[in-house]
Structures are given as C-alpha cells and as structure tokens.
C-alpha cells in the first residue's frame, strides 16, 4: 500500500485513493482527462494503491452480482484483499468462457446458454426471451438489443466457441483507449484534433459481428470516424457471422477426428457450408482489391488503417514497385498485427509498409477478446500497461504470482479494472516477459510487457519426445500440416 503517512493524514489519503479507484472503475479515460501522457505518468506507488483499492471495491460489488465469482471466492475463503497478489486465486481461467457443454450449441439451446452466461455477468439476462432464436448471431443480437451486453465470441482448435460478456460500453472504452494512445504524442497534452477530428477508417473487415474482428468496423466508425458513414471504409458490407465461424471450427474438429459425418451442427447451418467455402476462397483477393482501391480514394487524407501485416505488405510492395508511395496524409496511423502464422515476411517488411502508406512507425498492440483494454506498443516495441490494468505474471508450473520486481517470464494474467461485462480477472494462455523496474526509454512510467509473446499451447511437445498416447498437440500439428496444402 502507498504509505499514507507521507502524503498527509491517513483518512484524506485513503479517501483520495478510493476516489481515484472509483474513477478508474467508472471510466478511466475520463479520469485521466483523455490524456495519453497522464495515463502513463503515474508513480508506481500511486498506481498500486489505487489498483488494490479498486479491486477490493470490485470484489465486494461483483461477488454479489456474478454467481461464478461468488462460488470461487467462497471456495477460496477470500473476503478482503491485503495486497495485489491476494487477487491471484480469484482470477478466472480464460477457459471459463467456454465451459458449457458443446451440445447446447449444436442443439441450439439458447435458453440454457443464456442461463450459463447469466452466471458470468453482473447483468440480469433472465428476462430476455430467447425462445425464438435459431442461430448464434440471432441469440447474441437479441442480447445486444435488450441488455447492455455485446458478447464477444472466439473459436479455438477444439471446435468450441467461447462467449465473453462485454458491454457496449466496454467496446467503446477499448476503442477510445486506442484512440487516446495511438493519436496522442506521449509527453504532450491532448489537442482538439486528437480528441475530436474525424479520421477515415480503412479496415479490410466487416460491417458488424459478434467478435473482436467484427467489432472493429462499427466501433472504430463510432470512435475514429465519429459516426460519419462516409469516413468508414470496410471490405465486407455484411455481418461477420458467428455461426459460420463456429461451423468452420466444427468442420476442422470433425476432420481431425477422422469422421466428417460427425459434424454436430444444425442442418440449417451445415447447409451454409458452400457459403463458408466461397467466403474463404474469395476473401483474400477481395481484401487485397479493397485496400488497392481505398489507397487511391484516400490519397492524402488522414487515415486510421487497421489490418494484418501480410496483407498490408502485399499491397505495399506492389504499390512501391509501381512507383506509388506516401499515400496517406499527415497524422495517419497504421495498426498491424497477427496473420503472420505460416507466412514468412521479409526482414524489411515494416519499412516497405511505412514507405508506402507514408507513416513513420507502425503501431502494434497486445490484447485479447477476453479483455477490454489493449496494451499499445511504444516506440521501443514495449506493450505498456495502462494503470487500470493490473498484470500478474504467474509461475507456469505452480500458478503462483511471481514477484512484481525485475524481469519476469511466465503466464500472463490480468485484472482489468475498467471491465464491466464480467469479472475483470483473467488468466491467459500466453507466455510473456514483464519488465517491472527498468524504465522504458520512451518515457512512460508504466510497467510493460516485452514484444515476444507465445501461447503455452504452442510450446508443448517439442524436440523428439515420443509417446504412444495421443495428445491434442499431435493432432493440431496434423491439422496444420493438412491445412498447409
């Protein structure tokens, strides 16, 4: 805890900490005056005191609202937090968000799925009538229409889809936080343009969708393009379908099991297989054509471009070869990431992209569907923690939190104080290195995560340990191998 003695009378100091904590819970961006500089300039002691107070408030509040948290906290017999690490046993495994029996989806039991989701969110979903829902999109759309939730889906190799309760406010905060941190120069106060200027948004994604991918279009349109439809440029003028994403995952899972007749999805969805195949085949070319078209139309404009590195690189290298460069206007931002799996980019790919678009750096971020706030990469490729995001580095073997000092490598876990749709505590599957004490040359006072991040699931197996017992890794590899053709 921050030593109250140093900062004045204990009561005033505690009240101050509590006021700040409530501010972070309500809307951290407003609390910091929408200032990137303010966000990343707080002294460590103040950050940690406020984090502890905010987590304590949220533990009391959410315990009464989220049944699964109550069960966990009761089992752990934890009622109060005395130090930040006391929160570690109360963090949810990310797998909690897919802990429903798969048959609920294949049998379209949206009533039971709602009941399941209701145990994970502070919002009461019991009054929502989902009896008419006949698809995942329909169900999540209904929840979005009638409650504050805008749940986010993601699908993994096992073919299960996770549902993470976010609110519309969570999404807005995510993209506003992005705007604050990528448009504003650290060290300066926010300008009017930083806060209010309309930017063109160019993203080879969708009109809508119940996933991180599907959220980019609508929420960037709101936050960056300020709701002006003429400023939002997307590749696909339709909703990214959660049902099709799930179908794709189930087809992969069935193929891995060696029996493609065992795709346990409703007939109506299976009938959309052709549509899925068509989208899969057409998408890369359509996305590429979209970017080529947009860079001409947006020549000289201030643009926020969000996309995957290989696609941007492909367009940029052919553009440069045709003698086109510096296509965007001043103050434009290019956000890249992901998509590199299986694609090897040349070492100078980022120079190519920067020259073509006419920006002096590319922005990267570390985040996940199961978290509201994004960690934005600085000029030194460090992902800085906003103060309302508490990081825990867990020992990969024991799950115990490692000391919050020095440089630590382990499993990443977070408590996002700003998150509203469910419990903010999350244990990820990512192996990260956190730097607690060495200040970053970029000037931000916040702790940071190093650039190199891998999933623990990708680290298993290795070498030539051979076993006669089948493991999921072996099958995932088999699947990758088949998909490579």
């Amino acid at each position: 805890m921050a030593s109250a003695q140093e900062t004045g009378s204990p009561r005033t100091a505690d009240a101050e900490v509590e006021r700040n904590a409530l501010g972070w819970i309500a809307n951290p961006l407003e609390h910091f005056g929408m200032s990137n500089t303010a966000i990343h300039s707080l002294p460590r002691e103040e950050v940690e005191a406020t984090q502890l107070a905010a987590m304590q408030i949220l533990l009391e509040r959410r315990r009464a609202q989220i049944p699964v948290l109550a069960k966990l906290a009761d089992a752990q017999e934890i009622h109060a937090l005395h130090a930040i690490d006391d929160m570690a046993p109360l963090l949810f495994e990310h797998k909690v968000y897919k802990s429903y029996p798969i048959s609920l989806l294949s049998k379209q039991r949206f009533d039971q799925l709602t009941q399941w989701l209701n145990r994970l969110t502070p919002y009461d979903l019991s009054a929502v009538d989902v009896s008419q829902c006949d698809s995942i999109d329909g169900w999540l759309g209904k929840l979005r229409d009638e409650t504050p939730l805008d749940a986010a889906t993601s699908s993994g190799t096992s073919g299960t889809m996770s549902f993470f309760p976010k609110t519309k406010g969570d999404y807005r905060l995510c993209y506003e936080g992005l705007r604050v941190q990528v448009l504003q120069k650290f060290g300066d106060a926010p300008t009017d343009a930083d806060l209010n200027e309309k930017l063109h948004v160019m993203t080879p994604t969708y009109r809508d969708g119940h996933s991180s991918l599907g959220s980019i279009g609508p929420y960037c349109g709101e936050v960056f393009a300020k709701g002006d439809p003429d400023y939002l440029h997307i590749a696909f003028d339709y909703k990214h379908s959660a049902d099709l994403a799930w179908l794709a995952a189930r087809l992969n899972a069935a193929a891995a099991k060696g029996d493609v007749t065992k795709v346990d999805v409703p007939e109506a969805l299976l009938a959309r297989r052709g549509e899925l195949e068509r989208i899969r085949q057409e998408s890369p070319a359509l996305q590429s054509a979209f970017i080529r078209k947009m860079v001409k139309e947006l020549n000289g404009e201030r643009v926020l471009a969000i996309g995957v590195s290989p696609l941007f690189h492909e367009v940029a290298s052919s553009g440069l070869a045709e003698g086109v460069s510096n296509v965007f206007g001043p103050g434009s931002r290019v956000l890249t990431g992901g998509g590199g799996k299986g694609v090897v980019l040349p070492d100078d790919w980022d120079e190519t992209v920067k020259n073509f678009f006419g920006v002096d750096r590319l922005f990267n971020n570390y985040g996940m569907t199961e978290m509201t706030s994004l960690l934005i990469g600085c000029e030194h490729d460090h992902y800085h923690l906003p103060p309302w995001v508490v990081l825990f580095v867990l020992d990969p073997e024991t799950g115990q939190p490692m000391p919050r000092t020095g440089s630590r490598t382990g499993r990443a876990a977070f408590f996002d104080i700003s998150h509203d749709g469910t419990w903010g505590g999350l244990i990820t599957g990512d192996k990260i290195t956190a730097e607690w004490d060495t200040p970053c040359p970029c000037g931000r006072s916040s702790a940071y995560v190093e650039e190199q991040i891998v999933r623990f699931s990708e680290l298993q197996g290795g070498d030539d340990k051979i076993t006669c017992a089948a493991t999921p890794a072996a099958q995932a590899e088999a699947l990758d191998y088949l998909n490579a053709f």
Partner: protein
Amino acid sequence: MPKQPISPAVIRGQVIDSDLVEFGGRGGDISFLAPDPHKIIDRLPLGSPSKLDDLYRISFDEILDYLEELGRQLAFDRNEHMQEACELSYGTAPVTPPILRSLYQSMPAMFERERIRTWCETSVPIPYLEGWVETQANGFDVAVRAYGSRCLHVVAGNAPSIGAVSVMRGAVTRGDTIIKAPSNDPFTTGAIARTMCDFAPDHPITKHVSVAYWRGGDEEFESRLYQPHNIEKIVAWGGFASVKHVTKYIQPGLELISLDPKRSAAVVGADALESSQMLEEAAARIATDVGAVNQNACASCRLVYVMCGTDDDGIATLSKLGKLVYEKMMGLPPDLSTKPKSYDPSLKADVDALRLMDDWYEVIGGEDGEGAVIVSHTPEAVDFADALDDRTVNLIPVDTMDEILDAVDAYTQTVGVFPHELIGELRHKMSLHGAQRFVSLGYAFNGPGVIGPQDAIEPVRRMCKWIVVETPGEQSVPLWELQEGELALSP
C-alpha cells in the same frame, strides 16, 4: 558442474562412448551426452543384406534360448546397467520413480520362453519363421517363408518396455534391428543392448542390434541413413511430428510401419449399476485402467461412458460412481500409480474452469495435482477430452448405445467394457468406427501381452518380407508352347 549422464551407443556388440556431444536440456528436460551421431553413422547400417545370413544358421529354439537368457540377465537386482538406466531415467520418464522401478522389474517376465512362443504362434506362425511352408495352390506347389528385414525402430519413450519389444521382434523375425532412442527415454534400450554385449558379445542376435541417439529430424543424419540401401523398413511409434520426420524418406524399397498415437476409453453397462457391490467393482476397474502407470500409456483410459441415463437419478448414480472411482484411484498401490510427477497446468486450468460450472459438471478431487474425476451432467465428453492426463478421467452419462460410438475414432486403441458380456454388443459397430482392442474393464494393463495385432495392424508380420517359391505342377501349361489365341495368363 555436475557430471552429465551418458547415453552410449551400442552398435552390433560394441559399446561406444567416445566423441560425446550434448543433447536435450530444453523445456526443463535433463541434458545428456551421447556419441556424435555423425561420427557413427557409417557403422549403423548393416551394409550387405547377405550379412543377415548368420541369423539363419541358428534355430528358432536357439533364438528362444538367447531371449530367455537375456530375460534372466535383465533381472533388476543383479543388472548394474539397468539399475543405472533406471536411476537416470527418473529425470526423463513421465512416470514417478516407484512406477518406473516396477516397470524395470517386470521386464524379465516379457522374455519368458512360452510367452514369446505364444505370441509368435498367434502372429507369424513359427514354421514360417523357421523355414519354407509348403502348400498347393491352383495346380502349383507353393512354398512361403517369412524373412527378416533390415529394420529401423523409432520408438516411443513413455514406457521403458518398448525398446525390449523391438529387440524381441527383431530377433524372432531374424532381422537387423537399429533402434533410435527417444529423448524422453535415452537410457533404457542402450542398457538392454549393453547387457547383450556382456553375456553374448559374439552371438548373431547381439550382432544385429544397434541402439543410438540422434535428434529426431536431424536432416543431414537421417537423409543419409534412411535410404533403401541401408534399411528396408521403419517402424515409427508416436506422434505426428516423429512420423513426419520419417515420411519424407519413404520411397519404393523403404516401407513405413506406423504405430500411431492412441488413446483409450471405457463403457460401463446398466447392469453394472444395479447393486452397490457392482458399483464398487466398476469403480475399482475404472480406477485401475485410469491410474495404472499414471495414465501415461496409449491403453490408459481417459473417457468412461456409463449407461446410467441422463435424468436426475442417472446423474446421482454417476456422481456416486465418480466418488468411488476417485477413492479407489487414490488407494492404488504406489508401484502401479502415484500422485503424478507434475500436473499439466493447462489441464488444471481446464478442470478448474469446470469446477465453477456445477450445473453441468461435477469435479471430484484435483485441487492438489493428484488426479481428478470429472462427472459430466450431459451425454458428452468435456471439450478438452484429448488432453486428459495425469490421472484425470471424465465420466459421461448416456441413454443409448449409439451415443457411445462417439467415444470411438481412429485414435481409439483400447475399449474397456464392464460387464464383459457387453463386448458382444459393442464390438462390431465400434470396430467399424475405429476401436482396435476390447478388454474386460480393468484389464487394459493386464492382458496376454502384444500377441499379434497392435493398433489394428500386425507389426511383426509387417516387419517380415514374405517370400514365395512357385513350382509348376503336372497340369501347369508352359506359355511357350501355346499358339496365338490360346493365351490364358493367370493373374
């Protein structure tokens, strides 16, 4: 620096422990030293196939004499090589020391004379291994013989007995055996081979066994060794990665015998739930097939389908069974099952996530990494079924037999069934779906041994080269005497 363990190469009766280089040491594994593979590669292949001839100058009984003696020599209490290998393997083996020691101690029994004779008889009948078996076919006298081949074994390392099995299969088929030791068991097979050098250095069987370690996927090494002029067959155990290393060298003249990774399941019929006595027995049987060797084998049970129905009464029965299974598993003797060496953290995350969802699942145990029983409340396995390990089993309630078929696919090796009579009902459909071995539940590790079929193939028959001699009979028509239009080729 502590002394690093050595995994010597043994090539055709000679122990090689020079030119050592370091291997392993990644991902928390121990590192060890082994002879530089590139310095010994030229000595590994047999060279000329005619050098197999010495194995044909001894009788099948003499082969059994040799194996029987090897079994005696492997007696754990008297064999320093085996004691040392066992001690070193504590660091690499997936199982705990008491289980590993008991696996080492039970190795001599694998070499019992009658046991070997029996599995040969049920797989490649001995007359085919001993000489030409003559029959008549379509007017010809036909003689068939099973010849040994020059065979490379890429063995799995999760059980120390696999190297011993490979040595025996090579010996009875009169083949030349090269064993690539795995990084998770780099010591055991070498110790067996050194024992052979000690008691019979010049015996033809000793002269046809080589054991060495090289890093799986070492292209420079493997592309030189894995050639049809060096070896004729590769027996590859284990996962996709290890088989993938091998498949690129497969070509005419070099055959792959793949023993894929497997997992196993169980079925408990409604009759087994009738009385509390039967329920106890079912629990003991499940606990045994789950807990034995800490669930590290392909035959280890991971999913149990129980025909208790999915209504409240059914789930209550299943919950009772689950608690009994947990209790019995905790009570297994330590040379069969212990608290796992470590509990997969990713699996723990999965199990702990379900613990919070008591509408759909009940989790019994597992807080301390000791193993857990997950009781599903719906007729389906947990979505991480493929990752069940470290004594973690999922009990699944079903209403109909058809739902049980979901348990089975091409990765399914053993299906343990209780009551045993239910096998008659299950085996046909399940075989179509991929199941490969049916046992009485509780007997997955206590059967007749690998008597012939393994993973739905017959590896020993596949290891042989099947040669035929055709002698025309009196009725056979010489082609050269036929006129145009009289041609009648037999296929």
